[in-house]
């Protein structure tokens, strides 16, 4: 195993000699952790609203004032007709239309039911549904308030109160930051060693190594150890950025996160090795890796919750190991879960890691 030491020294030298990689290794986690969480957010703010007020009463005015007071909406236009408002939507100037019918105040006073019509532009479906949801809440609060002022008891005398557990302010960044930590691991521990091995193939340097007494295990171990340590180091930096800037994992045990991270990076390294075994050119490896990355990113619950997928896709996620690591990361960072709560995810992650490693090692042959 003496050669392993020299192979590692060689990796370090090559990494340092690269004009680009060491810088990227610093910029990448900073960019991902400090910039992305502020941009990639699903929080809906600044919904543009067109109001068609056909009642023009003091009640309708009060309602509009109340909507304006919330920080979710920008009152864009006050239109006479619904058609006019629709043109605004078509131009992309507004996202929601609220139509207050003629005689609203009168009906209200007479105790008649009132219908307020809301139309939402669902091209951006999140904005549409969330926006109309917020609007609903404001209107129902408003009507309750109105009834109370009239001295009436609300028709439905139950007050709903919701408490958001683990993320009390529904801060989307709490959801995103653990996911971004996973993206960092995928990129560093999956991509870099794969591309490095395929580059050695393309340059023919792997062949020169193969006629030396260096064993296949040593060669691969040198890649895994180097990029594994590099990956963990950058993961650590990113994690502490997440902790200090976004205050994730206030209760979580860091040991649990690292145990998951090590299992996951071994899995990514194994899949990377597997791909490099079948790739002759870098182009091929990049494309294959990208396919896996897209699958992992979009189907493992990294950015979109698994619960909202169609049922068959939810079953499919069980064969995607990142799913388990995503769950581990979120549970630890947001709920402070420990090994006892997450044993299933750890077990599955371990099984997939073991299977993938065996496949990778078997397909890696030194002698053709």
């Amino acid at each position, binding site marked *: 195993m003496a050669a392993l030491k*020299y192979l590692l020294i060689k990796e370090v*030298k090559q990494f340092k000699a690269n004009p680009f990689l060491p810088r990227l290794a610093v910029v990448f986690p900073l960019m991902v952790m400090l910039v992305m969480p502020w941009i990639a957010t699903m929080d809906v703010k600044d919904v543009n609203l067109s109001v068609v007020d056909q009642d023009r009463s003091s009640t309708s005015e009060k309602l509009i004032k109340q909507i304006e007071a919330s920080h979710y909406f920008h009152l864009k236009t006050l239109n006479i007709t619904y058609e006019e408002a629709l043109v605004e939507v078509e131009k992309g100037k507004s996202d929601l239309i609220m139509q207050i019918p003629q005689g609203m105040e009168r009906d209200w006073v007479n105790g008649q039911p009132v219908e307020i019509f809301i139309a939402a532009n669902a091209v951006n479906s999140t904005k549409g549904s969330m926006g109309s949801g917020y609007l609903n809440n404001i209107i129902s609060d408003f009507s309750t308030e109105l009834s109370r002022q009239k001295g009436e008891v609300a028709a439905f005398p139950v007050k709903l109160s919701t408490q958001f557990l683990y993320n009390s302010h529904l801060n989307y960044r709490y959801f995103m930051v653990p996911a971004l930590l996973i993206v960092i691991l995928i990129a560093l521990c999956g991509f870099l060693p794969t591309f490095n091995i395929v580059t050695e193939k393309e340059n023919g340097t792997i062949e020169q190594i193969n006629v030396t007494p260096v064993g296949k295990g040593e060669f691969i171990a040198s890649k895994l150890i180097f990029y594994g340590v590099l990956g963990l180091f950058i993961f650590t930096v990113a994690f502490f950025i997440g902790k200090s800037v976004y205050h994730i994992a206030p209760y979580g045990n860091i040991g649990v996160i690292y145990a998951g991270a090590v299992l996951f990076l071994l899995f990514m390294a194994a899949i990377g090795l597997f791909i490099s075994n079948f790739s002759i050119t870098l182009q091929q490896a990049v494309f294959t890796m990208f396919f896996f990355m897209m699958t992992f990113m979009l189907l493992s619950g990294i950015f979109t919750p698994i619960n909202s997928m169609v049922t068959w896709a939810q079953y499919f996620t069980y064969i995607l190991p990142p799913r388990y690591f995503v769950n581990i990361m979120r549970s630890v960072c947001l709920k402070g879960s420990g090994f006892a709560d997450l044993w299933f995810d750890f077990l599955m992650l371990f099984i997939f890691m073991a299977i993938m490693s065996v496949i990778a090692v078997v397909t890696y042959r030194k002698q053709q």
Partner: protein
Amino acid sequence: MAAIQTNQLVKTFNAGKVSAVNGISLTVEAGELFGIIGPDGAGKTTLFRLLTTLLKPDSGSATIDGLDMVKDYKQIRSRVGYMPGRFSLYPDLTVIENLSFYASVFGTTIQQKYELIKDIYCRLEPFADRKAGKLSGGMKQKLALCCALIHAPSVLFLDEPTTGVDPSSRREFWDMLAKLKTHGITILVSTAYMDEASRCNRLAMMNNGRFIGIGTPQTIVNEFDKTLLAIRGDEMYRLLNDVRNIEGIEECYTFGDVHHIRLQKDTNLKMTDIEQILVHQYHHTNVKMEPCQPTMEDCFMNASKKER
């Protein structure tokens, strides 16, 4: 004991459709400088990759230093040096980093083996801190040879080491090989340049995965048993085609600024007959013809014609 001994080596690709090495039997004695000449695609590189244990043969066997190429591949790897046709050192490491890396994976140091590489390395020394990828072709070749030699191998495989190198560097390179031979290293070298063949102790001519002739440069030339003529005229291209049409001529091909004509073995065709035909039947002017000594290339052309 022979340094390299192969017995009916066969290697095919694409599920047997392409046979790159087709039954090669070869014995190279220890300390010999053995050349393999042949055109691109002859199977030289595949043969080298088999002998350096990078490929497994479909059938046949080979021993290097008495070690079996399949069973003892690990031991073989610490005894042979291989310089592939394509530059395959780390382009992003410096000259000295590459050299000390290869020394260390073989469990040695540059200092320990300096004696062996001294003559070659001294030319590289001014560039010790330059990235290997930034070296000139000749310098890359010297570095690759140093890296292949750093563990003092008993057998050295050089796959087309002089391809793409200028003529003076080529000559220099063969001088270095001659010097290495004095250290008792067995060298197997392939080349597509026929003129380099005379620098080998023995050589084999390879075509389509087979050896079509084997011997010392002298015996190969001596075995040329036909009449060889050099011809020139005013219209060289038309001349080539017309000569090929003459009965009794086995082959005519361009050779530098003349054409070489090889007569069939049992023909009665005379030089004057050919001239008559060319001047009177084909109206060539200024036709000059003279007998010439066969070179290695003529021998190769002759042998590959026989093969077909």
